[in-house]
């Protein structure tokens, strides 16, 4: 070849973070790389990890998901066990949406109980998400931190609640997902704030807020790409694994609407809507993906493995 070598090297390395498993489960490590994603260059000790989300509470499932979940159980622990096993998910993302006043209004103790049950039923690494309602989450996170009998990650800490979430995590040895609203500077600031109160860097994941396909995905795409470039270029506070939660792709009308026939079958389309979001996030540099559709977990798992280490 007479043209130049197109490979790139970077001075930085992304922090390696391990999500520990329960007894009999396999822990999963992400990060540790010195290169951009999906390229045969640099060091890449870990492939991207694919997880599945289970949500508590009274929410209508998108058609594509209710099709996929049919007969897999309704009890969170049973459903989680079945879906993780069937899909090969490397970790579980348990969202306690049911504690939200509008989505079930579960008592905090019930939320904590679900966490305990699910973690016993499913040995894979876990991330536990709050319900998104500030006042409830303020009570929920400490209870979850205590109820979890093994180390998990708490999702999420933001600029406002980080003292509370990180405090709960530190007290019981959990990790923290640091959330910021599609803004590279706020992503960095969140990590600095967590560092200020003593959360060790190998227990932090960046959640840059993932817009769904068609609804802001492009902002997430560029922010993830920039966070990764900054981290590899030596900005230590951004050299952390990035988690993309694909939940918003299931809020798109295009993923849900069964009336528009010219859009194709809603069951296939919904799944594709999440899958396209997933691939874009991987191309940008995501290290962990949280999917809801078990077939997407299986597809992504099968493809992001060996050749793309």
């Amino acid at each position, binding site marked *: 070849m007479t043209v130049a070598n197109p490979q790139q090297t970077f001075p930085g390395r992304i922090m390696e973070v391990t999500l520990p498993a329960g007894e009999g489960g396999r822990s999963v490590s992400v990060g540790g790389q010195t290169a951009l994603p999906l390229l045969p260059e640099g060091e890449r000790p870990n492939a991207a990890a694919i997880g599945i989300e289970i949500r508590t509470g009274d929410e209508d499932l998108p058609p594509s998901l209710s099709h996929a979940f049919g007969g897999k159980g309704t009890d969170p622990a049973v459903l989680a066990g079945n879906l993780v096993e069937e899909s090969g998910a490397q970790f579980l993302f348990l969202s306690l949406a049911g504690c939200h006043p509008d989505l079930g209004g579960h008592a905090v103790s019930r939320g904590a109980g679900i966490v305990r049950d699910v973690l016993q039923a499913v040995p894979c690494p876990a991330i536990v998400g709050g319900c998104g309602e500030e006042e409830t989450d303020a009570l929920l996170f400490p209870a979850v931190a205590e109820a979890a009998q093994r180390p998990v990650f708490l999702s999420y800490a933001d600029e406002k609640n980080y003292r509370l979430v990180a405090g709960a995590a530190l007290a019981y040895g959990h990790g923290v997902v640091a959330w910021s609203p599609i803004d590279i500077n706020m992503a960095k*600031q969140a990590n600095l704030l967590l560092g200020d109160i003593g959360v060790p860097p190998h227990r932090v994941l960046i959640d840059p807020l993932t817009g769904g396909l068609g609804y802001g995905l492009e902002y997430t795409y560029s922010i993830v790409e920039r966070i990764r470039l900054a981290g590899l270029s030596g900005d230590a506070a951004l050299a952390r694994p990035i988690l993309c939660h694909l939940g918003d792709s299931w809020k798109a009308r295009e993923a849900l609407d069964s009336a528009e026939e010219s859009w194709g079958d809603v069951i296939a389309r919904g799944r594709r809507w999440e899958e396209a979001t997933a691939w874009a996030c991987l191309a940008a540099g995501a290290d962990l993906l949280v999917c809801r559709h078990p077939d997407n977990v299986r597809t992504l798992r099968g493809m992001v493995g060996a050749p793309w280490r």
Partner: protein
Amino acid sequence: MPEPKPGTLRFLPEDVSLSVAPGETILRHAIRAGVPLLSPCGGEGRCGKCRVIISGEAAGGDDPGVLSEAELSAGVRLACRCHPSSGTLTVTVPPGSRPARLAAYLEGRDAAGDEPFLPLHAATGGRRPLGVALDLGTSTLAGALIDLSDGHLIARAAADNPQMPFGEDLISRIVYGEEHEGGFALLRQLLVAGVEQVIAALLGSGPAEGEIVEVTAAGNTVITHILFGASPAPIRHPPYQPVLREYPVRTGEELGSLAAPSAPWRLFPSLGGFVGGDIVAGVLASGMHREDGVCLLFDVGTNGEVALGNREFLMVCSSSAGPAFEGGEVACGMRAYPGAIESVRIDPETLSAEWTVIGGGKPLGICGSGILDLCAEMFRTGLIDRAGQFVPRSGAPFAETARGRAFVVAGAERSATGSAICFAAPDLKSVLRTKAALCAAADSLLTAVGLPRDAVERVYIAGGFGNFLDLRSALSLGVFPPFPLEKYVPLGNASLAGAIGAIRSRRRWREALSIAAGTTYHDLSSDAGFMEAFQRALFIPHTDEESYRKVLASRGGR
């Protein structure tokens, strides 16, 4: 004292009465009556500073979000929202609601005024030729009197800009002018009256037996347009261009001023709608336009402009930084008048604040340097985190107020107004926005021309605030970009210094014209990187904390 007639409004303690104009607020009556009353938000019920105590019948102004129960029952109302009814009404303006006597924030350095003075006018018949140099600020009008036979500075004086009741910001004043018949004429009249007050103070302050033969005035584009008699309205409409950039020389009489009716007035040229002659004068005084090395100039005033360049190029932008460093946009904020807290220390053990007050005594509020000190101290003692949120440490004097959680700087018993001086969460946000806008403006200018930060050799800080600034404390908050301390040079009121320079020397005046002609205006609202630079700088001290740490670890500076 006889009872006032029905339909009369009486102001105390001035004891000025006027008849009630139906539909007008108490604030409007106060303006007509010439009773000084604070209303930095332009009378729109935002700032809560125009508190008055009423006795009699009136409607409105009893906004529960702004006023406490106790205040309401004591008859406190917001003058801008309270309408007198047809009966009689007595309105007392308490000390906290009036602009205090203006202290001097006039000192400015002319860093480039080094040449020998060449007399332009000779003394005739024992009367000395006098020059008046003016800085027409959004909030303050400042002036200097110069003996043009030998160039020496006789006196300085200042007054509040009488347009202040029409809004602390310029846009409010434009809107007023646009929406009211004769609005701009009224604003001009008020401005001229203020200028005449300054000139009278200058003439009265020294043994200046003489005649004013020349005037130079540096002001922002809006104020200069109003003075010149041109409409500033086009500045706020697309394509956002001022009517004039250069102003033909006019006599005082032509401008409506009787203080120096026959003297030629030279108004500093404007660079754009939001970058005016004041920054041209500031650049002139800094001398950056003559230097080989690249310089930055921060003019920290009500708006906040930033200039970058050297003898090869000059570029400016308006940072739209708020007036927080002048005490604006902060509930307990005030300008650097007697009664203002000017410096603050927080005891790391007890977490309570100690302060010094300009002129001594109990404080009325906090001025810019005090506000910066307060924030830096709160940060140092862990009472605010790097994201600019209060951290509720036990024992810290926090209180829940109508404006959210607030740090109590001085309890009611220690304050001159009788109510506590509190620094609330929105106040902190204002300060952070102001500092972030300044830093981001500088970063955007550097990015626009493609220069790295370390290419900058000197950083000038203009604005009265710079004279009192504790640079380390300011940099610990990230008020300015992280340049080594020794690169910073405070200039004080550089705009006035530039106006003085230009009246003392024709060559300097020509320099001012060529600065205006050759400077590139950079519009931050169309700079895609600005918002991001702004977000980076909202953090304390900055998202790029590493650079600040290095600067603060070194021992340079004053």
